[in-house]
């Protein structure tokens, strides 16, 4: 009997404003406790909230990026509960009238290793996940339980930091889909510049709702895994939780609605509190804040600041640049990656495929090995473009280009070949090619002489070849290349070898 796993996500993305959502206190991470907590942050008697326009603009940006309805009027509500790191005794959030309505996100699902549910479908595929809503709210502070001798310390630096809570429909059917959605969302919020995406610092936190059912049956009871701050943990937590629910039901048990925490050390999920004990938050519109009105004009102003979105770029890369869907998707995994690609392509017109290959090949391999981001790559897009140009015009072979690339990966070398003009960089790369003696030999006389020597030195193999052992051709190519130290123009070498071997 098969089971279907049903997953929905609630993601809290911290918006990248420099001040808090309802006051002017700064939002920088890592400051000494309570040094970024002003009168409003600590909720002194008499203080009032004033909405940060930058937070609203970021919410609008997000809504537009997922094709959502932007509410012309939304309302801030108070969510009332007592907690020491919630200074007002209520959180200002949005309840029945959120700023962003229904939207959708297209995701590319890659099967995850060890993911039972997706093991059967090893192919990558595309899926559309519906977004229910996204609303603005303020973050709480932090309770610190260490170093206080049995007491609790309260740090209100984070209190009032702007968050966008993005809620999906329960459209995902595997950990792989959930992770793909979370990663796509993570990339999108960074792409449009509304969130730094730093998961370690809590800038992008995921709550995952998981339930299981027999296919075709109504939704099962869900449990919510709180506060996952890595994609790896998300996969592990979902896999464990889903299996736990399946085992529980198969053993005759029932699932009760609950909030659970994932323990990365044990790889298990454990219930924190059951929903029956849940608070009655007594939501009501915050009388200190006016309804948030967003005019068509404001919306269009924000739209004008949106960069080309990943989905649009992918379509363009396939239709206009002739790249494969896979290439297009990898190159748009992050805005920095796409920017690098487009900057290189701008200086190497018509070489989209080569640019893509180099970025996804050599560059990605080096970045992965050194655990770096593309913005940290020592080689600059213009340098890659010039390098590709030299392959195309036959100045260097592909293998020589890889050697040059290795040199360019050394910051001290890359830095020598600076400049914004193609001429400057081209001159620099030429100098490097000359200096390393990697210029390709395209002189037909030199190649013929080299081939003659090889034929003379390998009479037995030549005889074998001539008697029909065609496969030996590669052997001769290898010898010739080695003799030319990789500099022989491969096409020319092929021609000459074919002709001379034929006798």
């Amino acid at each position, binding site marked *: 009997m098969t089971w279907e796993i049903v997953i929905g996500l609630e993601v809290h993305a911290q918006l990248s404003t420099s001040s808090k959502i309802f006051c002017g206190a700064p939002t920088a991470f890592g400051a000494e406790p309570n040094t970024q907590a002003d009168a409003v942050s*600590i909720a002194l008697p008499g203080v009032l909230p004033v909405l940060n326009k930058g937070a609203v603009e970021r919410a609008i940006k997000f809504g537009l990026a997922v094709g959502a309805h932007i509410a012309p009027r939304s309302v801030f509500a108070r969510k009332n509960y007592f907690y020491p790191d919630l*200074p007002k005794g209520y959180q200002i959030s949005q309840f029945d009238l959120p700023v962003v309505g229904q939207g959708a996100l297209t995701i590319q699902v890659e099967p995850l290793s060890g993911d039972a549910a997706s093991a059967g479908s090893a192919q990558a595929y595309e899926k559309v996940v519906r977004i229910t809503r996204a609303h603005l709210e303020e973050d709480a502070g932090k309770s610190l339980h260490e170093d206080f001798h049995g007491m609790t310390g309260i740090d209100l630096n984070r209190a009032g930091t702007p968050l966008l809570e993005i809620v999906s429909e329960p459209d995902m059917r595997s950990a792989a889909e959930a992770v793909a959605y979370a990663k796509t969302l993570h990339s999108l919020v960074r792409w449009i510049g509304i969130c730094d995406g730093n998961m370690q610092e809590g800038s992008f936190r995921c709550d995952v709702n998981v339930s299981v059912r027999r296919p075709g049956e109504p939704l099962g009871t869900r449990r919510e895994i709180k506060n996952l701050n890595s994609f790896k943990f998300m996969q592990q937590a979902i896999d464990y939780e889903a299996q736990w629910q399946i085992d529980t039901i198969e053993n005759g048990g029932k699932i009760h609605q609950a909030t659970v925490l994932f323990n990365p050390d044990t790889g298990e999920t454990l219930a924190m509190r059951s929903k029956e004990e849940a608070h009655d938050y*007594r939501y009501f519109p915050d009388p200190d804040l006016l309804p948030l009105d967003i005019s068509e004009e404001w919306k269009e102003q924000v739209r004008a600041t949106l960069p080309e979105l990943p989905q649009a770029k992918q379509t363009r890369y396939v239709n206009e640049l002739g790249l494969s869907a896979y290439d297009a998707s990898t190159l748009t995994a992050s805005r920095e990656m796409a920017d690098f690609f487009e900057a290189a392509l701008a200086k190497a017109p018509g070489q989209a495929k080569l640019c893509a290959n180099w970025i996804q090949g050599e560059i990605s391999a080096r970045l992965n090995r050194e655990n770096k981001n593309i913005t940290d790559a020592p080689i600059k897009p213009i340098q890659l473009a010039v390098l590709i140009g030299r392959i195309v015009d036959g100045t260097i072979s592909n293998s020589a280009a890889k050697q040059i690339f290795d040199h360019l990966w050394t910051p001290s070398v890359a830095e020598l070949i600076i400049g914004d003009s193609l001429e400057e960089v081209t001159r620099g790369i030429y100098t490097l090619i000359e200096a390393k003696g990697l210029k390709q030999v395209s002189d037909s006389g030199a190649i013929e002489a080299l081939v003659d020597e090889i034929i003379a030195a390998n009479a037995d193999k030549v005889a074998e070849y001539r008697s029909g052992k065609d496969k030996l051709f590669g052997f001769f190519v290898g010898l010739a290349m080695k003799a030319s130290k990789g500099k022989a123009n491969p096409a020319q070498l092929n021609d000459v070898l074919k002709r001379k071997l034929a006798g």
Partner: protein
Amino acid sequence: MLNSSLQQLGSALRARKISSVELTRLYLDRIAALNPVLNAYITTNAEASLAQARDADARLAAGTADALTGIPVAQKDIFCAKGWRTTCGSKMLANFVSPYDAHVIEQFNNVGAVNLGKTNMDEFAMGSSNETSYFGAVKNPYSQDAVPGGSSGGSACAVAARLCAAATGTDTGGSIRQPAALCGISGLKPTYGTVSRYGMIAFASSLDQAGPMARSAEDLALMLNVMTGFDERDSTSLQRAKEDYARDLAKPLDGLRIGLPKEFFAEGLSNDVAQAVNAAIAEYKKLGASIVEISLPNSRLSVPVYYVLAPAEASSNLSRFDGVRYGYRAPEYSDLTDMYEKSRAQGFGAEVKRRIMIGTYVLSHGYYDAYYLQAQKIRRLIAQDFTDAFRQCDVIMGPTSPSTAFKLGEKGDDPVQMYLSDIYTIAVNLAGLPGMSIPCGFGAANNGNPGMPVGLQIIGNYFDEVRMLNVAHQYQLATDWHSRAPQEL
């Protein structure tokens, strides 16, 4: 000097006939003598007040004085004032010294007025008699066994007893107008959004509005000139051009149309109040006004609507008083929940707890629609009644309070009777309109008790404070109720 208007005091100060320090000392001495009896002030700080007076004298000497420079003004203890204990009448904040100034306090500081002290009030402005103050009840200066009204009872008492030149108050359901009426002074609650709420400790945010309390409409106008103005720190503060509220005081009232809501002269209104109010209306006719009978059919629902909405907002506004960061914390507790429960149980008085419980109840799951949402709908109907009424008249008049000042303790065990003392004032807050009370006579003396003051309520259309002050001032030119003073204590 004690009976001088703000205009006269300002002139005397600017003419250097008296210094601000002398004037401040005069009041401080008077407070020292009379406050033990009246309990109008919770906190005075002679050192701070005199320092401000000295600064004011320098400004007066330099010729850069404003209308209120050097004038001692009492501040309701709901306004946060830097370096001043700000208690809001509660044990919860009995030791809270504010590190910042409310917008209202800043405005007075900017013009060089002297903060004479923080006046007593019902705890968190919840009450109509000043009896809920943690710092003890305020006495009515006309009769020490009567209440001064509330919640701005300390300010009303201080103005009436000449313990300040003028005072500030706040009005959520009548808290400026009702004590003004009961103490025989003038008080004005402006249009919602006119005075910034920043730094004014919140009771019910959508209803709270600060305003002046003084001995005449003319004084109110000068006070209002200082208190109003846009403040970006209050999202409900309205962006309007600064205006001179005294500009039309002298205008004659010919052609003024006064609306009398029939609902305000029905059952529940005491005879002596009805008589004084009717006499005032007669006076207005003499001044050239015409009378229009109007109806505010939904105003009968204003008390129940108010006692859903105000507690709902209060239950949330008062959540920050949890003993964690400032204010009262129970000395002993076993865990976090126990700390919350004990701190709040010990730090809040009975009326505050009652309203927190009502508010929590009406916002609870399953009751929200029936109470909170329903009340919001009726609130709109109540506001609509006024909009309709103002098509037929320029101002609305009626009693401020159904009776004159009642005895201390008289309504203490009956909250509903207490709530009904605001029956004529609450609808104005629900609609966000400006309202004021001016003295218009006294009730009958009986059994050796003196007759207590009666207030006439004047309700204006939105932003029509200039006209209201004109209407009040013309009456005060023709009558002398506003210049009566209680017998010297």
